[in-house]
């Protein structure tokens, strides 16, 4: 199971209490993880990435194992610890707004 932590406004929107665990088939990538998030929680479609272009929203960042994964290809494999379920993918809303 892949572990994902979402920002609190999205946890509220999706009625999620804490970290979520998802089945991801095939290679574990940002794309496949977000596909699984949106399949389980359709109300989150469009809140993390554009529904058509699949581009990450500007103020959304992805971290795992201490690394910022936001600028790597969404099809790059995520760290082994994420694929093994020992480390979560952290979806973070950027600190912005002053």
């Amino acid at each position, binding site marked *: 199971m892949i572990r994902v932590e979402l*920002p609190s*406004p*999205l946890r*509220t*929107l999706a009625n999620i209490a804490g970290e979520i665990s998802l089945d991801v088939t095939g290679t574990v990538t940002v794309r496949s993880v977000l596909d699984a998030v949106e399949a389980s929680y*359709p*109300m989150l*479609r*469009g*809140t*993390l990435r554009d*529904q*058509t272009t699949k581009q990450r*929203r500007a*103020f*959304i960042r992805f971290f795992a194992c201490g690394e910022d994964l936001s600028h790597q290809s969404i099809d790059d494999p995520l760290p082994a610890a994420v694929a093994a379920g020992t480390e979560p993918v952290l979806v973070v*809303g*950027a600190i*912005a*707004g002053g």
Partner: protein
Amino acid sequence: MSGVRVLVGTKKGAFVLTSDGKRTKWDVSGPHFAGWEIYHVKGSPVDPNRLYASQSSSWFGQTMQRSDDGGKTWNTVENKFVYDGVPGTHQWYDGTAHPWEFKRVWHLEPSLTDADTVYAGVEDAALFKSTDGGKSWNELSGLRKHGSGPRWQPGAGGMCLHTILIDPTNPDRMFIAISAAGAFRTEDGGTTWQPINQGLRSQYIPDPTAEVGHCVHRIAMHKSRPDTLFMQKHWDVMRTDNAGDSWSEISGNLPTDFGFVIDVHAHEPETVYVLPIKSDAEHFVPDGKLRVFRSRTGGNEWEALSKGLPQKDCYVNVLRDAMAVDSLDSCGIYFGTSGGQVYASANSGDSWNAIVRDLPGVLSVEVQTLT
């Protein structure tokens, strides 16, 4: 027992204010969708328990909400708004061509005859329609493709379609307004559109009498006279009596004719309300006094309504979707401010009370008259 439900959208959530027909004691529920910008909440005239809400955030984009129990509970509905075909470009602030990009839903207008049908006015300006209660949205692209689209440009708040009026005598006829393109009318349910800006004069555009380019802030209609529209333009208060074929100015004795809101009394089609704002550079009420101005003559002659409103050191703004009227026997008028106050008058504007005063900045106010 009659009553009213006031739907308030703010910069950090939605609030539902309810009262009986006396409108003296109010119950405040919320914040709903805490932390999110709620540009607009509006109820269906067919089923008052059916509410639609536009929820958005700089971080997470646009989400849509629907309630089937008058705002007690909410469910997300479809938030995918895709322009029909190749979107093309409109003018950017500097005059260059800029691709059409969806940003948010500014205004929701439920159908007058079907609770599952609702229109959405969006930024970048376009009109969408859902006929399944918000489960899917399709663009009425005849508006954007009417021909002048490449010449539309954003106002300071973005290029938004913010006003949708449906003719109660003919659902195929609608009016919309866009900042800063102007007003448009359809006679065929949204398939084809024509600009209706003749008579508008805007000194800030290269051709002050151009077909498009006018920064219309709001349009209002009385249900008994769908050919008569009242407009608060960026500057100038205007009216038409031929469904927009021509407009004439009715600013008259207003202290300033800049403003955002305009509305019409529920039972008196020649009684009109505006809330003058000092200027486009100073988005607050003039002289530190919060005053609604009422004309009982369809414009030109205006009286200041100030009883119960702050008359000293007040510097709030009232945005374009933040005034509404109820249809009780003594018409109620409501508006919300950038300072988080929602004011109500239960006597057509003669006197006012703050029904709630410390909300986040108010973006929109709608009223449902409940029977």
